[in-house]
């Protein structure tokens, strides 16, 4: 009987591919849409694969590079903006090469489902001269991950496996294979692994030579015993029909929209295959590139002097899809069902969960006249209704350093308004890159206040362990970073630990900290309400006899508190966890259990 195929998430398939390729070390920092790769790796036995959550992507990449040079196939996984943090090791690892294979899995997020920008990883790759593979379903996630390790070793280069949200978070059918074991012998070689100017000058030559080999490999001029997954399929009468160059998820969209076109499906999108593209162009009608985000492939094709269309039709913003491609190319509108009468559909953006400790912090912050530099995590949502409690969000760790910059700007500019500035940052984000910023505040005599929202987990990405918790990715007990001692050690003595649900104490702590002329840290400590061990004992109720329908409790912006059409206020027992934050909001004491 034929073996039943597995239905794997793209990210699970990458993990499976790495496992089958014999990966021995995986170090990552969580980030949507890449997180499930390393979570899946952690389900393989610790004897076979060492894995960890690193404090940030730079550390993760360096761990992977180190273990690969030592002779074990290694991988680091991150979201697109994570590669900015890990760009430093990537660029120089391109010079050193790898010994055993190193794969950087980088997940881009066209459409920004859970990100702050739409940058295109392929430019990082081109700039660092490292090859990029782009799978378009789970089967290719497995195959390309294995191929990435082979290319990495054969050409002595780190390899980027680029996913996008729709590949990472789709499930499709795969067949599993056995694990292979690959190890390399480490030999000390400072001319290869110690990049000082004299060595790096020589290695730059190696990078250029490798680049030429990669380009030939991509075009199929040489094989190096590798099968590069750049596939050409010609339509019948191809000269009269469009020829589409595409990769990744766009290949899937394009196959649906253009069933009769010729295709050059690129699995390796850097370096691009000059010979293949030229040949394809001569055999097809209109040459079209379909790609999300930047015109990376299109620019190259145009540089070859070929007549090509792409962004002329398709936006560089957001994700593409079959409807967007049909509309842009054929001017076709979708044949959608329509409602029988107009319905005013209210917006439904994500909100803080019922019981979320961040709610209390932003309720308090919204009442104080302060400038607030925010950061990346669930608490970014403090920028929206009803709190509007954040002024800025830029990148991981930026809250602390931007608040310092704002404070210094106010000192230098006499006319600037003298609003006090605070930074708000989660525990995991603080460890990721808030620590160095806080050292800057202390070292350079800043006086800003940093509020660390310590919810004892990495929340936004779906609960990953972090160094402040004292547990590893495999839930083994380990040392916990002591945030109070850490602040003290870098020279900040003004540290207050407060339970954000004690909103009076929190308010006083913030007002006190901003009134003092020294740098300060407030640690607002309460675990994420979604953690299994958090149990508030079930939903609260409103005593309708006592309730005066004033709506004070609703100002917290809790999704479990609703007003009915008759004006009465109710607690939705299917949503309420019973955290009790609203009890103190009621002037009549009408809420309880």
């Amino acid at each position, binding site marked *: 009987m034929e073996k*039943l*195929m597995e*239905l794997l*998430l793209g990210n699970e398939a990458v993990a499976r591919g790495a496992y089958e390729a014999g990966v021995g070390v995986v170090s990552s920092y969580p980030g*949507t849409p890449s*997180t*499930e790769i390393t979570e899946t790796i952690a389900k393989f036995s610790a004897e076979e694969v060492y894995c960890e959550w690193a404090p940030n992507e730079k550390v993760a990449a360096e761990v992977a590079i180190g273990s690969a040079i030592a002779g074990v196939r290694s991988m680091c996984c991150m979201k697109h903006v994570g590669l900015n943090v890990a760009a430093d090791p990537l660029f120089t690892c391109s010079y050193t090469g790898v010994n055993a294979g190193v794969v950087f899995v980088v997940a881009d997020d066209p459409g920004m*489902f*859970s990100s702050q920008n739409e940058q295109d990883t392929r430019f990082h790759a081109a700039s660092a001269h490292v090859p990029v593979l782009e799978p378009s*379903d789970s089967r290719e996630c497995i195959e390309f991950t294995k191929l990435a390790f082979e290319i990495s070793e054969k050409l002595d280069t780190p390899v980027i496996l680029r996913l996008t949200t*729709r590949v990472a*978070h*789709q*499930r*499709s*059918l795969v067949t599993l294979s056995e694990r292979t074991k690959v190890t390399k012998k480490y030999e000390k070689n400072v001319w290869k692994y110690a990049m000082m100017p004299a060595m790096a000058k020589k290695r730059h030559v190696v990078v250029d030579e490798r680049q030429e080999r990669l380009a030939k490999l991509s075009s199929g001029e040489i094989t190096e015993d590798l099968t590069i997954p750049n596939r050409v399929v010609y339509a019948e009468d191809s000269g009269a029909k469009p020829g589409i160059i595409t990769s990744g*998820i766009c290949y*899937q*969209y394009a*196959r*649906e929209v253009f069933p009769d076109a010729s295709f050059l499906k690129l699995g390796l999108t850097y370096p691009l295959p000059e010979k293949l593209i030229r040949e394809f162009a001569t055999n097809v009608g209109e040459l079209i590139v379909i790609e999300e985000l930047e015109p990376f492939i299109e620019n190259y094709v145009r540089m070859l002097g070929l007549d090509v269309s792409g962004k002329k039709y398709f936006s560089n913003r957001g994700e593409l*899809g*079959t*409807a*967007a491609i049909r509309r842009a190319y054929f001017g076709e509108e*979708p*044949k*959608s*069902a*329509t*409602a*029988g*009468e107009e*319905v*005013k*559909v*209210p*917006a*439904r*953006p*994500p*909100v*803080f*969960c019922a019981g979320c400790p961040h709610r209390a912090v932003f309720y308090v912050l919204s009442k104080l006249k302060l400038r607030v530099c925010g950061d990346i995590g*669930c608490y970014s*949502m403090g920028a929206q*209704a*009803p709190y509007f409690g954040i002024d800025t969000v830029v990148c991981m760790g930026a809250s602390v350093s931007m608040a310092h910059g704002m404070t210094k700007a106010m000192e230098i500019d006499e006319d600037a308004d003298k609003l006090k500035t605070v930074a708000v940052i989660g525990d995991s984000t603080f460890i990721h890159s808030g620590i160095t910023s806080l050292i800057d505040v202390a070292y350079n005599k800043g006086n800003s206040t940093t509020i660390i929202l310590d919810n004892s987990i990495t929340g*936004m990405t*779906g609960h990953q362990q972090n160094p402040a918790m004292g547990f590893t990715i495999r839930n083994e007990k380990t040392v916990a970073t002591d945030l109070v001692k850490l602040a003290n050690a870098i020279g900040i003595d003004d540290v207050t630990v407060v339970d954000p649900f004690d909103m009076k104490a929190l308010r006083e702590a913030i007002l006190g900290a901003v009134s003092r002329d020294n740098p300060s840290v407030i640690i607002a400590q309460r675990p994420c309400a979604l953690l299994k061990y958090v149990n508030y004992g079930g939903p609260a109720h409103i005593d309708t006899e006592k309730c005066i329908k004033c709506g004070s409790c*609703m100002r917290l*912006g*809790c*999704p479990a*508190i*609703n*007003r009915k059409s008759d004006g009465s206020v109710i607690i*939705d027992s*299917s*949503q309420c966890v019973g955290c009790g934050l609203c009890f103190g909001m009621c002037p009549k004491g009408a809420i309880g259990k």
Partner: protein
Amino acid sequence: MESKKLNILIVGVGGQGTLLASKFIGMAARLAGRDVKVSEVHGMSQRGGSVVTCVKMGDEVFSPVIDLGEADVMLSFEQVEAVRWLPYLKKGGTVITSEQKIEPMSVVLGDAVYPDNVIEALEKSDAKVIHFDALKAAEAQGSVKTVNIILCGVLSRMIDDITPDIWSRALRMTVAPKFLEMNEKAFAAGASIDF
């Protein structure tokens, strides 16, 4: 219902169990030997936001995503979400929606009003519409957590070539053993509701 190719859009509010429903349906398609792709949404939109997942099955599926006008069936866990995502349903497609209402924050804060004409507008639409209170049905089965499986039970009646045995195997492979009995009852209830 056409048996070869079927696009099922599952919509609701983050936290309602849409992901589990899409896994379950995807698993059933897989056991039935169909090509199948599932598209999920993770991350920020799971925090009480509007969520959508897609299950596509057929002889060969390319895109995992169901785009505007491409869904044959929409399974909606919350009534206003059915209208929000209606443009993704093809003309003449089928909506199966729970009548449950979950107020978005904009309504809670008084910045918007929860519309009172959702079911009426759906009934007058150019789609076939099945609506019932899946939350009440789930409560009757003993747990509000089984709304997703009840809705899948209703859906199962529209897919002729996936047999009850396959659905039952898929359910066993999707839910934890201690919740199996509860979910089996919920699925059976969904599969036998009168409309």
